[in-house]
């Protein structure tokens, strides 16, 4: 095959899946094709040292490879999780189109070599997310949530666009690979380039859009938000920071401090949540805080660990949102006061709650633990005083995970419950597909960890 088509063929595969959305009963076919695509993509040759598979503007190194795999995987599982739409016949075709468009955008975001094109698709992936939230959300507040999602990101990313143009103007190229040959010690540029990604991550103080969006989004929206959208920020930071080597050493402490203290504060806020989804959303802010800390230390452990934790957290929090949705579909509420005593109804689902909850609190042998260990290593080698905050974060993350688990699983079930059905095999498969890579990949962890 022509070498130029290696990366593009997957793009075409997604594009040519779009006509399938026009027909009826294509839901599972699209899902299966996505899975097929994932396995095909897994066979791509990637080198640990270089960007490989160059063609037009596409390229692939280990990090984009892993994140593309994660995107396809999550998109596939989003379809699996939202079978309810299919049953209700709730604009299924448009939903499928939206999924495919989202997958396309994410694929292009992660595979672009060009900073501007990356920016374009980075913003482009907002559109299907917004449509998901506004279109398939449950409550009227979803409009506000959509606005928050859109404008938080846009507010910070227009400076990013200006920054990209500035870099292009000065350096005459904006290829990721060549960024390492440039160095800008320019405060305004630093802030304008970093801030968009920090909002996307999200960093503490600019995280408000995330819980709102999660609470209002349908399960697929939550999964993609927690699974991939947050990782776009981390991906961007890992690519961009090479531009500001000197300035980063001076200024990165700001973000580390905000994220670590914020991570602790967020984990305390988790204890005040009574909405399952909101709690999980807050917990992802907490984890992403540690990721920001790891990236901003600029050392090898931090870069590796942040990539690994992004993958691990993508799988884990997406799985937890699935679980929350499984309860929601049965009880029509996300309140912790109503979702109680589930162990009496769904003992097997309780196992999955426990497994994913324990992965969320970074219990072995999950990827999260390995990622957290390397991030702790990086942050501790940056300053040992970060130990205090790391200990608090790690302790309270166990606390709120257990709080969530035992509040839902134990106790008396809600007495206003009229009818109930237990888990179906689709859901168990869905959770298995989240959990298995999360805990099995530790056996070959360099595959999702070492990216340069």
């Amino acid at each position, binding site marked *: 095959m022509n070498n130029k088509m290696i990366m593009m063929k997957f793009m075409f595969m997604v594009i040519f899946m779009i006509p399938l959305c026009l027909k009826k009963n294509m839901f599972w076919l699209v899902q299966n094709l996505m899975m097929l695509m994932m396995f095909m993509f897994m066979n791509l040759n990637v080198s640990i040292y270089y960007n490989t598979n160059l063609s037009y503007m596409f390229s692939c190194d280990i990090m984009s490879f892993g994140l593309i795999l994660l995107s396809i995987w999550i998109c596939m599982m989003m379809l699996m999780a939202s079978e309810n739409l299919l049953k209700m016949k709730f604009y299924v075709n448009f939903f499928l189109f939206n999924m495919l468009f989202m997958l396309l955008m994410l694929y292009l975001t992660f595979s672009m070599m060009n900073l501007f094109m990356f920016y374009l698709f980075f913003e482009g992936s907002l559109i299907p997310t917004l449509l998901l939230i506004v279109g398939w959300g449950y409550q009227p507040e979803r409009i506000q949530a959509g606005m928050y999602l859109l404008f938080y990101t846009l507010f910070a990313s227009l400076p990013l666009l200006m920054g990209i143009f500035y870099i292009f103007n000065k350096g005459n190229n904006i290829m990721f690979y060549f960024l390492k040959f440039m160095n800008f010690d320019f405060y305004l540029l630093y802030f304008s380039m970093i801030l968009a990604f920090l909002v996307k991550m999200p960093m503490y103080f600019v995280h408000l859009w995330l819980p709102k969006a999660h609470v209002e989004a349908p399960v697929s929206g939550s999964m993609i938000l927690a699974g991939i959208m947050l990782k776009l920020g981390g991906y961007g930071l890992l690519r961009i920071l090479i531009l500001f080597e000197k300035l980063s050493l001076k200024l990165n402490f700001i973000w580390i401090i905000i994220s670590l203290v914020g991570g602790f504060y967020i984990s*305390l806020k988790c204890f005040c949540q009574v909405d399952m989804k909101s709690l999980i959303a807050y917990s992802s802010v907490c984890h992403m805080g540690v990721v920001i800390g790891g990236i901003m230390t600029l050392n090898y452990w931090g870069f590796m660990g942040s990539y690994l934790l992004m993958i691990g957290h993508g799988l884990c929090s997406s799985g937890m949102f699935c679980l929350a949705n499984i309860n929601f579909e049965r009880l029509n509420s996300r309140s912790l006061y109503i979702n109680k005593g589930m162990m009496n109804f769904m003992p097997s689902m309780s196992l999955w709650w426990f497994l994913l909850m324990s992965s969320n609190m970074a219990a072995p042998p999950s990827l999260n633990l*390995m990622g957290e*260990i390397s991030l702790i290593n990086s942050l*501790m080698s940056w300053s040992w005083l970060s130990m205090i905050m790391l200990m608090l974060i790690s*302790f309270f993350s166990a606390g709120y995970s257990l709080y969530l688990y035992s509040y839902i699983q*134990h106790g008396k079930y809600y007495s206003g419950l009229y009818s109930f059905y237990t888990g179906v095999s689709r859901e168990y498969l869905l959770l298995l597909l989240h959990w298995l890579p999360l805990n099995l990949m530790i056996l070959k962890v360099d595959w999702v960890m070492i990216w340069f």
Partner: protein
Amino acid sequence: MKKNISICFLSFFFLFFMSMVNFMMMIYFIMNNMVIFLEWEVITLNSVSVVMSILLDWMSLLFMMFVLLISSVVIYYSKSYMSSELNLNRFIILVLLFVFSMILLIISPNIVSILLGWDGLGLVSYCLVIYYQNFKSYNAGMLTALSNRVGDVFILMVISWMLNYGSWNYIFYLMFMKNDYEMYMISSLVIVAAMTKSAQIPFSSWLPAAMAAPTPVSALVHSSTLVTAGVYLLIRFNLLLVDMLFLKILLLLSGLTMFMAGISANYEFDLKKIIALSTLSQLGLMMSILSMGMPDLAFFHLLTHAMFKALLFMCAGVIIHMMNDIQDIRLMGGISNYIPMTSLCMNISNLALCGIPFLAGFYSKDLILEMVSLSNLNLLIYYIYYLSTGLTMFYTIRLIMYLMVNDYNLMSIYNLYDEDYTMLKSMMVLLFMSVVSGSMLSWLIFLNPYMIYLPLNMKMMVMYVSLLGGFIGYFVSNMMIYSMNKFLMTYNISSFLCLMWFMPSLSTYGLNYYFLKLGQNLLKYVDLGWSELYSGQGMYYILKNYSIFYNFYQVNNFKIYLFSFVMWMMIFMFLMMMIL
């Protein structure tokens, strides 16, 4: 025939077999002085390898043998004890998972791979504590899990401090890097981690609370395995710990734990809690002898204690079953007339706990106390040791009197039975071990015997305090109810003593209030307050107001135009007039 093959029997058989295999291997290893060290590399980053290590030496094999033996009989026991449980499979699987994580903890000499067992123990024990669905076990489980999580976090910090050495196989660095500054940090973190797992003083409150678990779990988890994980970790780290300031603090804390638990056990009326507190007291003993630099004695006592304490819990389980799930010892009494076999087991394990000669506890405890007398100690520690020994006798005799001798107070008509052979058979195994394991182990694991050389009174000191404690225990158990009310005269001090020095309250309400309050305030003032004001809502507010403002101008533009024209003209004319 088909009825016999249950998951309990299968697991029992498997675990028992594994235990025997471990025993044989242990004998082989100890005879040939052999150590097997296996390593599997997970990943190497910056020339630091994350490895999964397995260390098999006589110590780990012996400990595994004990854990497997106890767990096998406990599972066999729970076939009858949990027979009416609907989800027996879940229960047995949880117990098996627990044993698995304990084994992973025992065999890994690497601080990263030990997490696999260490975290696993915390999580599975959490599941086991909250096994019964009520608020009590929910709270107890949360307390247990979070206290243990403190230890996990400290282990995580140890991992990041060990990064300095370029490998996490701590076992290689203990001697060589002993005087390094980072090693001080590491060892203090390890000590705190071990203190959480072994429920030493600031963290003791979870151990009695964890008695909310089913009794077989208490027998396995909260007496012989989970709580000894901390002691075991420190035994592995012992080379590092000698001559350290923090170790002196540990000696004091563990001594106080021993003393505190002994006193609290005397105030307690809950059968399982008394046993739990006696476990706590024995853990304090192990920790304190460990912090005096005698890890082999701590290990010895760990093993013998595991045997008789598991047996004690199993007897308590039988009694609780028989008493219609009543745990209050004031309602029990005279049971030795009705259930002789169980009473026999109960008494033997209780006496072994006190260190009555030639039972299991005697060999370890007496040796420990004599080594304490031999060593160069201050008076405080010496008194704590001996007072705690007396207190052990005190609460044991009190318990025995309450259970065996005093009147049966629950109901006027009752029918106790002792013919549950599933439970009895499993207790017999441990009964045998509680009798012989002390002497067996002392011949097996000590290469050269300890030389004890003491004056007569110091040698007899154990006897004195035990007799004194025994007598007091006897008198206390015969105390009339109106004399008990005299405790109210010293209400403050007795509530201080019987509530474990207020530790349960301090570690729950004392801490969580502040954090929850902080979280609530943060949510209110930061997330729903200032952050909203300065980003989402604030921007919306400003934009909205300005647009209203401009809209106002634009809507009224004609009027304003005329008005401002007139204004300007007036100003102009005024200025003209000024100039002219």
